[in-house]
């Protein structure tokens, strides 16, 4: 029996390889151009494999940044298609000049026969009934089955299932370097004879065997042997192949032909024994009822601390850049609709999107690192104990926690949840978590409610977070007992080996997610911002009488100032006049902005929907805030600032005071009474005031109906809860 690694050199040429397979297995070798090449010269290769076999790392190694992420039509399964770089003359001799290999990264599965959405996608792709969005429909030209060198026995039944599909197939035995360290030896020649297809050894992490893999894929052949289809026979076949081709450690030298089960620990390589002992100890602590939870809480706290602290810098830079850009557009373009559209609609819209990119990228980078260490699989069990009573799996925790930064990456992170119902339930309740966009609203309302009582304001702030979490869990319970009814399957998860994370993989994941966010959400947010700008800016109205009077006063003061001339004795008068003019002009600006907002379509809408929100205590001005913040919650604060004061600087203490004391149309009652404030706070904790989230929900859940349901449920819950709170405070407080 020969060691697989000894054969690496002998298989460095794809030509030699092809002839080898043809000789040993009598397979059908593809002609030089390959029958699978379509007229465009593209060879489509599907990447299939068990989870944790390093399939994605191999994909990244082969394609790098030359890939795009979409989904399989009609599913929520992510599809990545990458272009393999054609290197060297070996591949060039097999392909036409303009040919390339398109690698389709399929979801990790344990078996094609399983009743899982991932397995269904793989079945359909291999049958030619499904292709990633934008790709040609039809069976792939070849399949590359990625298997774990140290865990071949478990992987072989899937190899058998793929071979039974009668597609040109290559088996790539990955992580061979790690397996060698554990004393695993694989006879690839024997395996090729048993499987009837090409078998190659690779290490996606170290790069071993990667250079020759594209050529091997291009010359893939249909196996001349078909493994049994029945599960039991397939497992027996896998046993036979494994026994004939794989030897572990000292057992080979003792008796390689008699693979008896042995529990004799003395035959274990010492390094493997130590690794196993360490893994046992780590697992015991990390999945412990108490310590597992404490460690998980600490890890997540650190993760989000890092996200909030570090992401703040690039977010500030982006904010400044877009501020400068808006100013530059404002100065460059003559006054008019085009200038307002570009500076207020387009630049602000893009800026509002891009500002979240640092948080999203950092979140995915850190989660990818954590996942790669093998820790997240253990953490999922810790959270499973807490979330399971509410019908959510442990997998939901990271998406829900991520939603505290922003629901968009949180919802995108639900892709890691294997069960469809669990995933949908998580998507539906994720926006209940308090995202950073709610914070400005919480700050405004708690400050109004608890002026000069910061401890109470902080308590109310924390209460908002708690109410959001409880509402999410309560909603999950309802959803799982109604529309997503069904027994929640107990959790079973492969616990990957602990290892140092790959920064390269994390960076590629981050790039992928960041780009996807900008492409998917950015365009929609931009469109929404432009529409909102239009609603708030049109129709154009003239200045109100009060403003005209103020402007006239300014003009009069200016004339008076000129009449004074350069008389040194009246310098103090001139300065006082200048200050008065600035103050009057600012008042006129605020009046005009407030009037424009009131007369705009958004303002008219506020008047129109006022009866709907009257039971909650909102006047038309608050209704405008609710309407405009439908695109993004934080818009509420700036809208209120504009409506009430004409200035959008809500951080200005004077503006805050003005908002707090602003009157309703009767000129007597405050807009923000205690009852209204509490009602508003509860409304913003629960309401689905984020259009981009709805767009992402529709995309990720696989239909607009889920977004509509989310909107209806959250808005309904928010409305009735706010109504109840308003009535309660009125009853207790009287105002």
């Amino acid at each position, binding site marked *: 029996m020969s060691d697989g690694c000894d054969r690496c050199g002998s298989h460095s040429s794809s030509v030699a390889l092809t002839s080898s397979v043809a000789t040993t297995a009598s397979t059908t070798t593809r002609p030089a151009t390959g029958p699978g090449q379509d007229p465009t010269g593209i060879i489509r290769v599907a990447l299939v494999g068990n989870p944790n076999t390093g399939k994605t790392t191999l994909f990244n190694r082969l394609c790098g940044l030359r890939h795009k992420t979409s989904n399989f039509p009609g599913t929520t399964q992510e599809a990545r298609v990458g272009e393999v770089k054609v290197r060297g003359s070996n591949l060039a001799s097999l392909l036409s000049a303009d040919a390339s290999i398109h690698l389709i990264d399929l979801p990790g599965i344990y078996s094609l026969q*399983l009743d899982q959405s991932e397995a269904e996608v793989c079945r359909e792709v291999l049958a030619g009934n499904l292709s990633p969005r934008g790709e040609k429909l039809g069976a792939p030209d070849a399949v590359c089955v990625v298997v774990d060198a140290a865990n071949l026995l478990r992987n072989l039944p899937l190899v058998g299932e793929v071979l039974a599909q009668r597609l040109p197939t290559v088996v790539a035995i990955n992580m061979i370097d790690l397996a060698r360290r554990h004393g695993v030896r694989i006879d690839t020649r024997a395996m090729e004879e048993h499987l009837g297809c090409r078998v190659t050894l690779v290490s996606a992490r170290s790069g071993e065997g990667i250079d020759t893999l594209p050529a091997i894929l291009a010359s893939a052949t249909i196996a001349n042997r078909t493994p049994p289809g029945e*599960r039991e026979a397939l497992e027996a076949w896998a046993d036979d192949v494994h026994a004939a081709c794989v030897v572990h*450690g000292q057992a080979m030298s003792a008796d390689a032909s008699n693979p008896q089960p042995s529990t004799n620990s003395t035959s274990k*390589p010492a390094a*493997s024994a130590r690794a196993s002992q360490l*893994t*046992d100890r780590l*697992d015991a602590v990390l*999945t412990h009822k108490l310590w597992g939870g404490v460690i998980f809480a600490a890890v997540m706290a650190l993760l989000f601390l890092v996200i909030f602290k570090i992401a703040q810098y690039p977010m500030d830079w982006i904010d400044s850049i877009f501020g400068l850009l808006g100013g530059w557009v404002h100065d460059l373009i003559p006054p008019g609709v085009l200038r307002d559209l570009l500076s207020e609609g387009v630049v602000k819209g893009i800026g509002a999107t891009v500002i979240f990119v640092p948080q999203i990228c950092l979140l995915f980078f850190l989660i990818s690192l954590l996942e790669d260490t093998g820790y997240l699989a253990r953490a999922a069990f810790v959270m499973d104990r807490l979330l399971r009573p509410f019908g959510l799996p442990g997998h939901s925790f990271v998406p829900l926690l991520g939603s505290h930064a922003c629901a968009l990456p949180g919802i995108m992170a639900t892709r890691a949840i294997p069960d469809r119902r669990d995933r949908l339930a998580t998507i539906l309740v994720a926006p209940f978590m308090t995202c950073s966009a709610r914070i400005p609203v919480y700050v405004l309302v708690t400050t109004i409610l608890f002026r000069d009582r910061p401890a109470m304001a902080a308590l109310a702030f924390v209460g908002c977070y708690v109410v959001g979490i409880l509402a999410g869990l309560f909603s999950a319970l309802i959803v799982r007992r109604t529309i997503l009814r069904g027994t929640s399957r*107990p959790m079973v998860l492969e616990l990957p080996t602990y290892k140092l994370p790959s920064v390269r993989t994390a960076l590629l994941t981050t790039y992928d997610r960041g780009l996807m966010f900008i492409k998917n959400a950015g365009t929609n947010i931009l469109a929404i911002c432009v529409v909102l700008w239009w609603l708030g800016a049109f129709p154009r109205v003239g200045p109100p009488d009060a403003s005209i009077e103020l402007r006239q006063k300014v003009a009069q003061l200016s004339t008076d100032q000129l009449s004074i001339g350069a008389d040194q004795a009246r310098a103090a008068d001139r300065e006082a006049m200048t200050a008065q003019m600035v103050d009057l002009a600012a008042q006129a600006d605020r009046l005009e902005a407030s009037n424009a907002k009131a007369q705009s379509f958004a303002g008219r809408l506020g008047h129109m929907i006022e009866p709907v929100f009257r039971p909650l205590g909102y006047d038309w001005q608050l209704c405008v805030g609710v309407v405009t913040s439908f695109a993004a919650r934080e818009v509420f604060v700036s809208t209120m600032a504009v409506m009430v004061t004409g200035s959008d600087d809500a951080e200005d203490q004077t503006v805050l005071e003005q908002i707090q004391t602003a009157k309703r149309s009767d000129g007597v009652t405050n807009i923000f009474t205690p009852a209204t404030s509490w009602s508003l706070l509860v409304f913003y904790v629960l309401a689905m005031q984020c259009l981009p989230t709805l767009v992402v929900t529709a995309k990720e859940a696989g239909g607009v109906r889920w977004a509509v349901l989310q909107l209806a449920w959250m808005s309904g819950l928010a409305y009735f809860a706010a109504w109840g709170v308003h009535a309660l405070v009125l009853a207790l407080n009287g105002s």
Partner: protein
Amino acid sequence: MVRASTPLPATVALADANPGQTGVVCQLCNDPRDAALLRAMGLRHNALVRVCRLGDPCIVEVLARDGCTASCGSRIGLARPLARQVRMGPVPPNGLGCDAACPPGGCATDRK
């Protein structure tokens, strides 16, 4: 050294075995969908397993059958309800399986 592998004295539910014990999977009495998944994950009939941790989750290591008992298989975490439905027995001396060790009636007996 790894905790010494202790052979199982008799057929027991995975959830009732002791940490460190090694045995073979005799029967999967789970829901067919769960059983199919466990089987595909390597917890199949006659699979050699070592119990690493009991409780929730129950963690087992599926071992290669030729002497490599560390880092040569996969580690699987199962929620306790699943672990209760997996029966494992002692490793037979001839290494051919555990049919003889399984109780008559198997899963049906367990559910009573």
